[in-house]
């Protein structure tokens, strides 16, 4: 317990937070990595997942691929890519995107598939094109699950972005590994606490966002009967 007090004491000092290598700067860096990795994952996996959910094709492949990706150790991928690309942001980004994309993908196709078939058929019967069905019916109604996928991905990325520092990039992992190398447990612990807080904050922000979205008319919340979360 005294260790935790020491770590908190370190967290309360001004110099722990100040400067280009301080906790503020590292936290921002950590968040920036998270946003970048999440953005790339979403750009790749969202369209793919929506297409799978909309066409109901390729679902088997997607399930196998996400399962295999879950077994893939992120640290292994990170160090492997780092050996080829050298230190920098490439290796962490590759590893983080591979980590996050399956969750985004699964959320997207599960979201679209969760929309009641009768609702989709009704939309088609009214003369909506496939594109209109997707953007005006399936995405708004599937939004809760699509967002859950993004939320899970964001959490995984925040947690794993600490490893970026292992291959020479920044983020809160810097302090963590600095503490490890200098046997300064309070620095390690302090940085860990900040990462945990950051993860809980981002998770909370997602939770709040999801709750607020439910109140937007025309979105998922207005037709809860049609959304069966699986």
């Amino acid at each position, binding site marked *: *317990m005294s*260790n*935790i007090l020491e*770590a908190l004491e370190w967290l309360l000092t001004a110099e722990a937070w100040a400067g280009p290598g301080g906790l503020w700067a590292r936290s921002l860096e950590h968040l920036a990595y998270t946003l970048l990795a999440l953005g790339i994952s979403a750009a790749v996996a969202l369209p793919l997942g929506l297409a799978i959910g909309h066409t109901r094709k390729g679902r088997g492949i997607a399930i196998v691929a996400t*399962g*295999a990706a*879950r*077994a*893939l*150790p*992120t*640290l*292994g*991928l*990170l*160090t*492997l890519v*780092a*050996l080829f690309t050298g230190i920098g942001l490439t290796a962490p980004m590759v590893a983080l995107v591979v980590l996050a994309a399956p969750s985004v993908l699964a959320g997207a196709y599960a979201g679209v598939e969760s929309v009641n078939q009768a609702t989709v058929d009704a939309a088609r019967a009214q003369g909506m094109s496939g594109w209109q069905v997707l953007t005006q019916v399936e995405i708004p109604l599937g939004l809760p699950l699509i967002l859950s996928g993004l939320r899970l991905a964001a*959490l995984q990325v*925040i*947690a*794993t972005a*600490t*490893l970026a520092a*292992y*291959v020479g990039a920044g983020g809160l*992992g810097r302090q*963590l*590994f600095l503490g*490890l190398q200098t046997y300064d*447990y309070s620095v*390690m*612990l302090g*940085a*860990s*606490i900040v*990462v*945990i807080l950051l*993860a*809980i904050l981002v*998770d909370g922000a997602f939770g709040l966002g999801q709750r607020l979205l439910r109140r937007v008319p025309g979105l998922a919340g207005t037709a809860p009967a049609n959304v069966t979360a699986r």
Partner: protein
Amino acid sequence: MTWILDNLPRIGELTLAHLALSLPAVIIAFVLSIPLAWGANRVRVLREPVLTGTGLLYAIPSLPLFILLPALIGTSVRDPLNVVIALSIFGLALMVRSAAEALDAVTGDIRTSATAIGFSGIGRFFTVELPLAGPALLAGVRVVCVSSISLVSVSAVLGVSSLGSLFTDGFARNIVGSILAGILMTVVLALICDLLLVLAGRLLMPWQQGRRRRPLLARAREVSA
């Protein structure tokens, strides 16, 4: 490739260490999740707090938790016990919700009929509810098992031996073969454990086979009619 062949004994050793860290965690998570899920289902007011609370545990990043635990339980940072406990916590976070949903899916009718035949509370739970929730529980354990096996390797950056050591060593000494061997073994290990779980499920729940065949037969009948 030659590196892998030259280092087979070390790879084997690390594979065992990897299993020694992940398997206990999977078992602990499974065993603890059942009473927690049962209690959460039983006391309805507690259900959401328990499920959300354990779910929140999953939000804690793994590496920081490996570091935080020693301060809480008095171990050293390189103690394998931290890894087992942390992985059990993550497993529990995933497992409690699926266990609660699996047990909850056993309908009230079945419970009532079991009681009517004369089952007592505990007997009914173990002989009726648990087996019926079995397939859904198995699905939950499979997820926990694969993610635990994958997650263990992170602890290697702290110096805890596992297949993850092949990543840290390989990175430090610039050996691609070492990292590849680690990735390969982790994935193979996850697949084997997953397969064993599926087989165990078939042995323990033979009635599942019948259930899978029936819709096919029904479909065949529809087609022939």
